[in-house]
């Protein structure tokens, strides 16, 4: 199961047939395992990594440090949920250190993001302060390097 997940994590398009070959398993067994993993939400979804800049789309993005006060009974979860329900929030993490939540926000322009922070995020009850870091350049995301890497040439034939 672990190996099936590893393969799919790298290549969501790997078919049960190919995975079965790679792992010397039966194709049916692989198919069933994947279905079970989807049902139990171990596999959350299959999606594509897109480099939007390459596609000619201008996108603004920011990492926002959010200081909040936890609430009795629910800790940070209630305020985190309030925030992650906004579609603008691409990722929301509770972190240790000098602030509490790290929120990644994506918008069409920097103005969109500023507006989101000043009108939606900062005024929320329980939010004490925010620090916004606009993303200047993306080098690597989720383990994938986004820059075009120089193709390494191997000798086409060697013995």
């Amino acid at each position, binding site marked *: 199961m672990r190996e099936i997940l590893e393969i799919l994590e790298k290549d969501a398009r790997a078919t049960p047939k*190919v995975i079965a*070959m*790679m*792992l010397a398993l039966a194709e049916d067994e692989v198919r069933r395992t994947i279905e079970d993993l989807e049902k139990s939400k171990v596999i959350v979804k299959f999606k594509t990594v897109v480099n939007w800049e390459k596609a000619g789309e201008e996108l603004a993005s920011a990492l926002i440090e959010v200081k909040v006060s936890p609430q009795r009974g629910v800790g940070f979860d209630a305020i985190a949920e309030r925030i992650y329900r906004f579609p603008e929030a691409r990722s929301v993490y509770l972190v240790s250190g000098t602030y509490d939540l790290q929120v990644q926000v994506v918008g069409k322009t920097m103005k969109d993001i500023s507006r989101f922070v000043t009108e939606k995020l900062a005024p929320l009850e329980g939010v004490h302060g925010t620090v916004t870091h606009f993303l200047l350049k993306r080098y690597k995301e989720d383990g994938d390097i986004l820059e075009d890497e120089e193709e*390494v040439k*191997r*000798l086409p*034939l*060697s*013995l």
Partner: protein
Amino acid sequence: MSAIRYSARTANEKRRDIISERVKSIPPSGIRKFFDLLNSMDGVISLGIGEPDFTTPWHIREYAIYSMERGHTMYTSNAGLIELRQELARHLSRLYGVEYDPQKELLITVGVSEALDIALRAIINPGDEIIIPEPTYVAYSASAILAGASVVSVPTSRANDFNVTAAEIEARVTDRTKAILLGYPNNPTGAVVSRQELIAIAEVAQRRDLIVISDEIYDRLIYDVEHTCFSSLPGVWDRTILLGGFSKAYAMTGWRVGYAAAPADILEAMFKIHQYVMMCAPTGGQRAALEALRNGEEAVQEMVQEYNRRRRVICNGFNEIGLSCFEPKGAFYAFPSIESTGMTSEEFAEALLMEEKVAVVPGTAFGASGAGHVRCCYATSLRNINEALVRIDRFVGKRAKDK
């Protein structure tokens, strides 16, 4: 400039035959023709490569860069960095339980290529015979001939999964036999000889007083079985020259580092040659190798896992296409039979390249017993492997219809 060249050429015509008989006796590489063809074509998927498609793990490269920044740019001691030899001694002891003294029994070389050359030159007298199982890595017989040995081949075949047996070796031992040269996991077949058979070969070596040169460069690239280090077998430590390297396991072909491990008297003789012809292995490569041994295990495991998956895909693929392929247990080569197509291995390789732009190496490049087979290296992306399989399927299908 052209005038000088012109005069050089006219002088040439008067020159006597200058190339040594020994060099002339080495057959030209069987793939030169393909190489030229390949270089002139676009869109080729090459399964003809003999090195990893991974680049050297970043921590190794980074460590080497750092060592250069600190100024490690000079010769090392002739035998190689002592830290590297010590680390290597620990590594061999940990993996295979073989003990070598880093001071006297280990030598860092310019790849297994150099280690092989100096091992042969250290032990061969003119006319000595050396027994080499076949199909074989091409450098074995060439290096043996250059060292002045006569090569006695032991053909192996599909019938025995290209494994060599002790009996087949012993049948070829004569008064002049000096050594056996083994290379398992094997290039080009991917065969791995069983521990039991290796023990039997070790007995032959003892009984007939032979040296065994064991090229174990693919020791880490082994799938679902365990590697047996030849010098770890009972009774043969003192007659084994163990060759190993970094090129394959750590994806470090370009760094040019490898090693030889042997009893002190043999190693001393190899050292003599090495210090005069090489001085030492590249310093940057040795530093990189040190880092590889210290912190490279995880990367090795990851690459091996990846090769293993590709291996299963390519072998399955060949068998489905109707090119029967035995299961290679090591290295990164599959060696399918192409006999069902009715073509020779050269015809197959050439036509496949021209019609479908897939490069494979004809089995005969590795000796006559490679006939009817082609070597396909699966150290390339799964995407390439799958595309190559589609093309080969189409190619073979067309032949079947024509028949």
